[in-house]
């Protein structure tokens, strides 16, 4: 595996560069914030630093975290997917309906995953075949997929899932305090990190995000890569939907509404450039835990969920403005040292 100097923060960081890359500093900043948050939360609640508590805290945001992995790749490639939460709902509802119709729960789950993959495929094909911007396509499917979910069940709630299914949302790895959702996320992080940072596919994702036209002229199968990314996003959204079904033991058409905001916020806060070409999975993972910690701290203080979204919205905007400012400064220094 060759290590060429490229846009990737991780590879670039290993080079004896005079300038420490922004991404490295960004990730260090995230770690500092994460620790500060932990101190703050420990101050607010003496039970915060309890191991069981720390593990349980993660359960609340693992579904979003799983969607954030393919979302990071999509944003690095210079695209965006606003339809993830709607895909999540459609898959969760299809799974619930099939289960209530008498299907085996795992077969129904498989069908839910297939629906998610198809939803992602539709996004990918509209983006590549019709050459529409992903923003517009997924704004449309954001309404379409959620609308289909609500057309299927109306305002009904589906429930009655068996225990061996709800385990994937509520259970723990046998003999450990590790919740199953966290385990699923950790198992998925590794292949996604390897895919983005250690394969030629990942290199091409960065390349497409940096200059799609150039990639096309260089003969890169841009369209095929984009379709794969959207299918991955659909698949992971569907998995998140199944995990939510399992965690709540029930599902409704509005399940996961608004998740796309939290997911995009985490990815951008994690240092992924919203215009593509830059970012690391490590940064995204750190940002996910930072947001989870922040929400947990606000919940400890009885801050209502809707007011918490104010903080998340502000965080999203700051996450874009701050690196822009930092980059402008480091850019200035580069000019000065040259």
């Amino acid at each position, binding site marked *: 595996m060759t290590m060429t100097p490229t846009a990737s923060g991780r590879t670039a960081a290993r080079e004896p560069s005079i300038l420490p890359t922004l991404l490295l500093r960004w990730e260090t900043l995230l770690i500092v914030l994460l620790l500060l948050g932990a101190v703050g939360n420990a101050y607010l609640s003496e039970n915060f630093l309890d191991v069981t508590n720390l593990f349980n805290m993660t359960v609340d945001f693992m579904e979003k975290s799983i969607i954030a992995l393919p979302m990071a790749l999509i944003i690095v490639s210079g695209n965006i997917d606003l339809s993830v939460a709607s895909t999540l709902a459609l898959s969760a509802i299809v799974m619930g309906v099939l289960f209530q119709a008498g299907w085996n729960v795992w077969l129904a789950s498989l069908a839910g995953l297939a629906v998610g993959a198809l939803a992602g495929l539709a996004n990918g094909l509209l983006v590549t075949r019709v*050459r529409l911007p992903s923003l517009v396509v997924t704004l*449309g499917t954001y309404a*379409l997929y959620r609308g289909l979910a609500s*057309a299927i069940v109306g305002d009904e709630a589906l429930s009655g899932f068996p225990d061996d299914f709800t385990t994937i949302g509520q259970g723990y790895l046998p003999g450990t305090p590790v919740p199953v959702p966290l385990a699923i996320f950790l198992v998925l992080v590794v292949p996604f990190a390897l895919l983005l940072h250690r394969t030629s596919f990942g290199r091409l994702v960065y390349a497409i995000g940096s200059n799609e036209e150039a990639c096309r002229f260089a003969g890169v199968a841009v369209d095929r890569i984009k379709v794969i990314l959207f299918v991955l996003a659909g698949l992971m959204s569907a998995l998140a939907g199944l995990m939510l079904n399992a965690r709540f033991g029930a599902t409704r058409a509005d399940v996961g509404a608004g998740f796309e905001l939290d997911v995009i916020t985490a990815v951008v806060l994690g240092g992924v450039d919203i215009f593509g070409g830059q970012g690391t999975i490590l940064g995204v993972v750190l940002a996910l835990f930072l947001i989870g910690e922040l929400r947990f701290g606000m919940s400890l203080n009885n801050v*209502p969920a809707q007011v918490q979204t104010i903080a*998340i*919205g502000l965080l999203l905007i700051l996450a*874009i*403005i701050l690196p*822009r400012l930092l980059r402008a400064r480091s850019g200035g220094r580069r000019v000065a040292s040259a």
Partner: protein
Amino acid sequence: MASVTERASRPNLLLLAARFRETGIVVVILLIVAAVSLRTPYFLTPDNFRDILLNIAILSIVALGQTMVILTRSIDLSVGSIIGLSAMVVGLAVRDNPDLPPVLALLMGIGLGMALGGINGLLVTLGRVPPIIATLGTLSVYRGLVLVVSKGQWVDAYRLPAGFVQMSKSEALGVPNLLLFAAAVAIGVAYFLGHTRLGREIYAIGSNPTAAQLAGIPVSQVLFLVFVLSGALAGGAGVLWASRFAAVANDTASGFELQTVAAAVVGGVNIFGGSGTVPGVLLGSLLLGIIANALTLVHISPFWQLAVQGLVILLAVVVDALISRRLQRALALRARRMAPA
């Protein structure tokens, strides 16, 4: 450039297509009207059409603001939250001060909307945050503020003074006020976009931001302005919303941003900016209103509403993309053929 030189000799393809775009919506509207009225005669009654028009009045006002933003290649996803916040703030003010003149209430909503739109504009211009992300952020910030302001409570119908509720209900010359407001906004925006220097600059920025900058157009200021205008219209619409429904909930107009984008895009506004007309957007709003009304009349569950909206948006952008690509190819071919001459 080919299109300019050829305009004299042959009918301009682009102009034809632009005309076709609006006739296209009219044809679709007529088809739906014909199909639905075959099933339910009530559909074609004046009463029902009055209902449809009243239902789309607020949508068309906000969609016209959204249109100005989209024309510059931006998007404003926060309009639903601005409507909600304006409706709540003004609703509370009117509830607590029943003597507040309705006109002042309306101005209050517009002013609040301008401020909120101004924040969007600053984020986009000074902060250089992409519009979609900036307004996705303010969408949740403004919506969260609704809850902060209301402390989780609703403004109930019986607490709103009659004068305020009548603002949208009463009629002048047999036309409901709500329609007059919408008409005034439509005429104002049409004049602004078509006949003022600033209006033309909005189109120029959307067609080619770099060229606009080079041509000396103050791109940042114009961008800031369209967000302020979109906010102002959404803020005013929030007051009308509170008056029309005589109650304000915490989730008022939540998700409405999607309908405004749909109305604009279905009405032929290019999502990449630079082209789109006021009559087109009005027709787009009408089409959405007719679809919603028809779904109810033919007893299709209201739960289909959102799916149909999504489908309509996708169809509109796909058709637009296919048409404009074919056009560009045709124009490029002709330009090549003309080149040696």
